[in-house]
């Protein structure tokens, strides 16, 4: 007891620090360290999913939608929609992180899906996928015809 009384200030400071560190390590609302690791699925394109593979996934599906798109009707079963602009609110982000099944992102603007995926992945969410109707978004659909006549 003598020891604690004599060193009040120091003990209080260390305890405050400990508490802050614990709060920070358990909180959900900040980005992970090591951006490269959490961006990796976008390089291997393992984060893109089409309808056939969605049907193989079990569990309740969370679908993140932006305000201009409507929920894809072809995905049946237990589905919950989440609006994209509030995806980082406390309720939704914990829902996504603690969810047991797949989390899908769908938008008519595929660029937007890509952006939201990156944010969620960097927050440490795994099993988040971008739902697309076809899997050829990054294929070039045209052939360049060179002009062989020099002007």
């Amino acid at each position: 007891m003598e020891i604690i009384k004599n060193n009040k200030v120091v003990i209080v400071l260390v305890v405050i620090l400990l508490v802050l560190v614990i709060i920070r390590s358990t909180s959900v609302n900040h980005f992970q360290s090591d951006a490269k690791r959490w961006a990796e699925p976008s390089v291997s394109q393992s984060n893109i999913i089409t309808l056939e593979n969605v049907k193989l996934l079990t569990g309740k599906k969370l679908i993140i939608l932006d305000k201009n798109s409507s929920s894809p009707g072809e995905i049946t079963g237990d589905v919950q929609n989440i609006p994209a602009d509030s995806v980082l609110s406390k309720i939704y982000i914990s829902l996504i992180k603690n969810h047991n099944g797949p989390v899908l992102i769908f938008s008519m603007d595929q660029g937007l899906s890509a952006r939201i995926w990156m944010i969620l992945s960097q927050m440490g969410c795994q099993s988040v996928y971008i739902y697309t109707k076809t899997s050829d978004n990054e294929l070039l659909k045209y052939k360049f015809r060179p002009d062989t006549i020099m002007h």
Partner: protein
Amino acid sequence: MGPLSSLIAIPEWLDLLIALFIGIGFGFSLEQAGFSSSRKLAGMFYGYDTTVIKVFFTAAIVALIGSQLLSYFGLLNLNLVFVNEFYVAASIVGGVIMGAGFIMGGFCPGTGLCALSIGKIDAMIFFIGGLTGAFLFAETYPLIQKLANGSYRGPVKINEAIGISPGFFTLLLIIAAVIMFWFAEIAEKKFARPDITSEI
């Protein structure tokens, strides 16, 4: 200034002003700790006064702990902090020269300036010596260029080289420091020179 500028946008002049005040604070604390006395500084090498190692090791550890914690809470981006580049041969040779100069002169560059500011004559001579050394380095650079730029390892961090986390490295360094402090106390008793320590 790292932690502040990530919270508020600080104009460059304010950054530099803060740096000026930090520098003034540094000089002030050096002088208050008695580091403008060359006998105190040289005492580190003879063993009768180990203040230098205690102060500098403490400063290093406080900076290490502080920056790790600030980085953890997202207030400081450690990737933006400058890391010295490591030239192996040059570091060894330069270290030996600097050590010899420290023991002989009783000052290192920072403390030398500190003593100069209070008007010590030996600090003035030391300072002139330092400038001469820098001049000689520049003039003989073509000859020593190979040594100066040899065995380049890049900006290495010890914890990355060994492969442990920075937090764990901090703990190891703290343990080393604590052991060092205890040895310093023992050395002071063993190599005591009361005729010198009573004056500084």
